[in-house]
C-alpha cells in the first residue's frame, strides 16, 4: 500500500462551522457516521502498524487449515516495548478486497488470533487489537469449519489472557466478528467508528422488513462512539476533528497516544508483574463484562 498522505487542506472538513461555531462532527447523522466508518480511504490496521510500530513481523496461519488475510497479526515494537498486534484488514481496492475477503475473517482467522494471543501470553507481550470489520464471514466454508466455535474460543482466550489488552475500534465494529478480538482491559473508539450488533441494513430488513429503512435503523440502534460511551461500554472516544480519511496521519498519531497512555497505565498497575497483580487485572476484566447489561427486577 502507498505511503499515508497527510491532510489535504483543500478537502479537509473544517473543525467547526464558521457561522455557528458548532463542530462539524457533532451534526453528523448516525448513517453519515456509518458511511465514514466504511470509507475505503479510512486508515486500516496496516496503516496503523506502519505509522505507530517498528520492526513489525507478521505471523501467519492457524497451524491447521490456512492463513486468513482479513485478520492479520504479528509482533512489533511499540515505543520500545515488544507487543502483539491483531487487527482486521479490509482492502482498499477490489483486487485487494477479494484477497482480504472485504475484511471478513473466516474461522482460520479467529484461530490464528487465538494462537497469537497465547503466543503473546507466553512471552508477556501486551496485546493491541484494531477492530474494523463489517462482520465475520458468512460463507459455506466458514460454517463447515465452525465459525461460531472459532469466535467463541477467541472470546474465551481473551477473557483469561494474562497480559494487558488494549482494543481500538477504528472503523466498523461489526457484530460477533468484531467482538471476537475486542475483549480487553481498555476499549477505545474513534469518533466516527461504529459498533453494532448487526449492520443497519440487516436490522432494517429484519425488523422493518425493508432494507431501505437503514437510515432509521442506524439512528435507533445507537451505534456511534458517543452513544456507546454513554452506555459505559467503552472507556474513551478518540476525537476526529477531521474525519480519519481526510487526516489519516493525525488520526493515527492521536490513536497511538491514547494506546500508549492506556498501556502504560495497565503496565504500571502490574508493578513487577507478580501473579496477584495479574490476577487483579483479570478480575477487573471479568467484572467489566460481568457488569454489562440493563434490566430491572420486579
Amino acid at each position: 500500500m502507498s505511503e499515508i498522505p497527510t491532510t489535504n487542506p483543500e478537502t479537509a472538513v473544517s473543525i467547526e462551522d464558521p457561522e455557528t461555531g458548532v463542530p462539524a462532527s457533532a451534526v453528523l447523522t448516525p448513517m453519515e457516521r456509518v458511511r465514514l466508518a466504511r470509507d475505503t480511504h479510512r486508515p486500516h490496521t496496516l496503516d496503523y502498524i506502519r505509522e505507530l510500530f517498528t520492526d513489525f513481523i507478521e505471523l501467519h496461519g492457524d497451524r491447521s487449515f490456512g492463513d486468513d488475510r482479513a485478520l492479520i497479526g504479528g509482533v512489533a515494537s511499540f515505543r520500545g516495548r515488544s507487543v502483539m498486534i491483531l487487527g482486521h484488514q479490509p482492502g482498499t481496492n477490489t483486487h485487494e478486497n477479494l484477497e482480504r475477503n472485504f475484511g471478513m475473517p473466516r474461522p482460520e482467522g479467529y484461530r490464528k488470533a487465538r494462537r497469537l494471543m497465547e503466543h503473546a501470553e507466553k512471552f508477556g507481550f501486551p496485546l493491541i487489537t484494531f477492530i474494523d470489520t463489517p462482520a465475520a464471514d458468512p460463507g459455506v466454508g466458514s460454517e463447515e469449519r465452525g465459525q461460531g466455535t472459532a469466535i467463541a474460543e477467541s472470546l474465551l482466550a481473551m477473557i483469561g489472557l494474562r497480559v494487558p489488552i488494549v482494543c481500538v475500534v477504528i472503523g466498523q465494529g461489526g457484530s460477533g466478528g468484531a467482538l471476537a478480538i475486542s475483549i480487553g482491559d481498555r476499549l477505545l473508539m474513534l469518533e466516527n467508528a461504529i459498533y453494532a450488533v448487526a449492520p443497519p441494513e440487516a436490522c432494517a430488513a429484519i425488523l422493518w422488513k425493508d432494507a431501505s429503512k437503514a437510515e432509521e435503523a442506524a439512528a435507533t440502534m445507537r451505534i456511534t462512539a458517543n452513544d456507546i460511551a454513554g452506555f459505559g461500554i467503552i472507556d474513551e472516544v478518540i476525537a476526529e476533528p477531521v474525519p480519519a480519511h481526510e487526516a489519516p496521519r493525525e488520526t493515527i498519531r492521536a490513536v497511538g497516544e491514547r494506546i500508549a497512555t492506556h498501556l502504560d497505565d495497565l503496565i504500571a498497575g502490574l508493578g513487577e508483574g507478580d501473579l496477584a497483580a495479574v490476577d487483579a487485572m483479570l478480575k477487573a476484566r471479568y467484572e467489566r463484562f460481568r457488569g454489562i447489561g440493563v434490566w430491572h427486577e420486579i
Partner: protein
Amino acid sequence: MRNFFQRQGKFRPRHTEDQGGDQNIPEDLWVKCPQCGELIYSRELDRNAHVCPKCGHHFRLRARQRIDLLADPGTFVEWDTALRPDDPLQFVDGQGPYNEKILKTQQKTGESEALITGECLVDGRQLVLVVADFNFLGASMGSVWGEKMSRAVERAIERHLPVLTVNASGGARMHEGLFSLMQMAKTVASFELLGKARLPHFSLLVDPCYGGVTASYATIADVILAEPGAKIGFAGQRVIEQAIKQKLPKEFQTAEFMLEHGTIDLIVGRQELKQKIATLIDLYCPSASVMTRSDHQADTIPVAGNPSQDTQDMPVAVTGDSADE
C-alpha cells in the same frame, strides 16, 4: 368442489408453524410431521416426547416441555424469575416500541423472558439447568439472558454443581443493541469461571441455534450435544444464500453436518437424553448426586480426612426405566 379434497374438521392436519402458539389445542388433533408427512395423533406425539414415531423427526419444544422431559417430576426450582428486560435504546421499529413488544410476548408465551434458569434433579442427580424458549422473540439473547446465565453459573460454582444449557436461538436481540452483543462476552466470562472451578458445562444444541449463542458459551462447553436434525450455525441460511447466490443443500448446518465437521461431540435422541445427561453427571461430577449444601460448606476447605465426593456413596446406577417417559 375443490374443497372436497381438503381435509375437514378434526382431521385437518395441524401445521408445525402453529405449534405452541395456540393455547387452546383440542385434544383430538392430528399433527402432520414436516419431515415424512405422517399424520400423528397429538397425544401419541406427547407420549413420544414430541418425536415422530415413523421417521424420528424431533419437533420443536417449548422450554417448559424440555424441563418436564429432563427434570425429575416436581424437582425444578426456577431462579431469578423477577428479572425483566429494560429498553435502554428506547427502541422503536416498524412494528412499534420494544417495550410493547415485550409485554405482548410475555402475554402470548406466559414467560417473562427467553431464558429459564434453575436447579433440578436428573434421576436423583443435582444439576443447574438453563433452557432457552424459542417462542419468546426467537430466543434472542439480551441483557436478561446474560444476567440470568451469569447468576446461574455463579450458583453452580457456589454449590459445586454441573451445568446443562439447552440452547436454541435466533441470535442477539437487536432491540437492545450493543448490550445484546456484549452478552456473548459476559456469558463466556462466566463459563470461564465455571471451567476454572473444574465444573463441567454440557451444552445441548436444539433446533434452531444460530448467531451470538452459537458464537459464545454454547460452543465452548466441555461436552457439546445436539438433537438429531437440529439446524445449527453461525450465519443464517438466508444470509449465506444471499452471499453465495445459490440454494443450500438440505443437510447443510444440521446436527449431523456439525458432527461430520467435528464441531460437536455427539447427537442424542430425545428419548435417550435424560439417561445420557445422568451418565455425564456421574462421570464428570459424581458429587452432584449426593452433595447437599451443608456438605458443600465443608468441602470448600480441603482438609485431610474430609469425606469428599469420591468416598461417599455413589448414586444408584441408572436403571433401565429411568429415561422412559
